């Protein structure tokens, strides 16, 4: 039972040991002379600014959700894909119905625009509006154009 997975397990053990041992040996033989510059967060030579914990775009979440559901679908299709040939046209149809139902889900995502990564609309000020305003009220020109 353990044969194939046993190999993976051995690999796993060795991978962990390898990392642990190399870090341990490195610690033994390296010199430790910390300076302020060295202890800084490495960010490609830039000065690190602010906190790394910023709020991410919600779109990541929707994409992850969709991914998760299709992940489960793939998992269910594996056993089907291995055995359906033994059942002739019936086995084929069973899988196709399953796939069609999920294809509808895909179509839904597509049509509703969940798959598009729409950029926020660039804020180009409308020149004609500004000009009209300028003619009407010369004092209040600039910031309102941002809308």
């Amino acid at each position, binding site marked *: 039972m353990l044969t194939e997975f046993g190999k993976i397990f051995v690999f796993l053990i060795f991978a962990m040991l390898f990392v642990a041992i190399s870090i341990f040996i490195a610690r033994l033989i390296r010199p430790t002379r910390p300076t302020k510059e060295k202890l800084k967060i490495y960010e490609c030579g830039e000065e690190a600014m602010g906190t790394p914990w910023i709020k991410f775009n919600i779109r990541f979440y929707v994409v992850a959700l969709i991914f998760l559901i299709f992940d489960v679908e793939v998992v269910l299709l594996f056993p089907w894909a291995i055995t359906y040939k033994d059942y002739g046209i019936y086995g084929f149809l069973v899988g196709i119905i399953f796939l069609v139902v999920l294809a*509808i889900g895909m179509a*839904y995502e597509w*049509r509703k625009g969940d798959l598009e990564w729409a950029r926020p609309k660039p804020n180009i000020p409308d020149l004609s509006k500004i000009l009209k305003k300028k003619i009407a009220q010369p004092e209040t020109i600039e910031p309102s154009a941002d809308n």
Partner: protein
Amino acid sequence: MEMNSLYDSLSLIAPELIISVTLLVIVLFDLIFKNNKKMLPFLSTVGLAVALITQAGNLTDGGFAFSPENTPLFYGMLTIDSFGAFFKILVLAASMLIIYFSSTTDEVNESFDRLGEYYTLIFGMVLGMMFMISASDLILIYLSVELLSLSSYVLAGFSKNKTRNNEAALKYLLFGAFSSGLMLFGISLIYGMVGSTNLTALNNFLQTGSINLFTITISLILVFAGIGYKISSAPFHFWTPDVYEGAPISITAFLSVASKAAGFALLIRFIRVGFVSYVDSEGFWKLSEVFDWQLLLVIIAILTMTLGNFSALWQDNLKRMLAYSSIAHAGYMLLGLAVMSDQGVLAVLVYFFIYAIMNIGAFFIVMLIANRIGSENIDDYDGLGFKAPLLGVSLGIFLVSLTGIPPTAGFIGKLYLFIALVDANMIAVAVIALLNTVVSLYYYIRVLKHMYLVKPSTEPPVIKPSFNNLIFVLILAVPTIIFGIYFTPILDFAKQCVQFFGV
């Protein structure tokens, strides 16, 4: 699977197939005609009507669908019988009412963009309920409960940008996920003991196998936790008021009627198929002696109705009040099941039929008023009875019927329940239920008092519902009166349907 048996199985689940196809059609329709949302309720109603007609035509069908190969007789994923047909007809009819209900609810129509999702998820719920009602295999039971739950979580939080909506959805999800986890654990314990997920196999095991009473008790309590959550019975009812208050009102009505019906059907079938060893000549069930369902159900029923009724006394929000009242009604119906006889199940069926009509009716009128005045608070109902005479009188009928006072249909439901209890010599329980009914009178009548007797501080608005809505109210209100006097049709229908296939 052999083609013949597959064909038989598919023809047995024809209504479910129709619902599934309609679900897909609605999704596609919404995708193709993005801006034509007017057709969605129509399409849904047609799908439900076709399923309903098919189901009514197959009322006496009996059989096992999707039986596994190489297993003894009486094993099947689904059991199709008239008992299931009764609940399916109830669910389908209630869904049709709810579709119309939804199409007039402002709260739902505000989210124009997502109406397609709304009707799709309603069909997801219906499909889950249909499979729940006839499932006789633990895996299918779990899957259908999940299908129902997943759809209803989203629907409970359907309205956009409303905090109480989001709160309802979140609470529903957390409670639901936990209880379905418990149920799954119970199912896995049962599978570990029985070696099969089939309910008939469970029954055979209980009669012959070597049983550890402790383990079986734990696993059954865990399974009951999952089902009890669906019917909002006592220790698992905490989500009910918050979710019912927060969800869009059409969904609240749907949850309180159809979802509960499916849960009851599941519970009844679970006990009937899994535990009854034989039925004696008077219709009393003889259960395997491993687990005292009667004791558990009586305790839970009394707890449920008492908690429901007493908590309802202090509610000022009508939706919340009706939520507690629906908890109390679940308690009454559990008593009908606790009798453990065909008579008791008959009482549950009659009760449910009537409860569906009057409860949807009450919620519909609350919705009509909320559409106009934007509030469900009881103080805002002051003097409304004179400004909207038909709505006032109809709400009165529904509330009186929910209390169970003659000559309304609610009385008949309670009457049969008490008859069943007295027949089984459960007088003390019957008395407690009766006292509970008296308590419930207070909070139902309080609404009427506000509508007719309290002088409003400001002039109440005139509420003029549209012609269609008035017809809808009459469709629900008139039967509530008629069935209170002439109830033979319900009784005959229910009697015909207390038939379980196979066992």
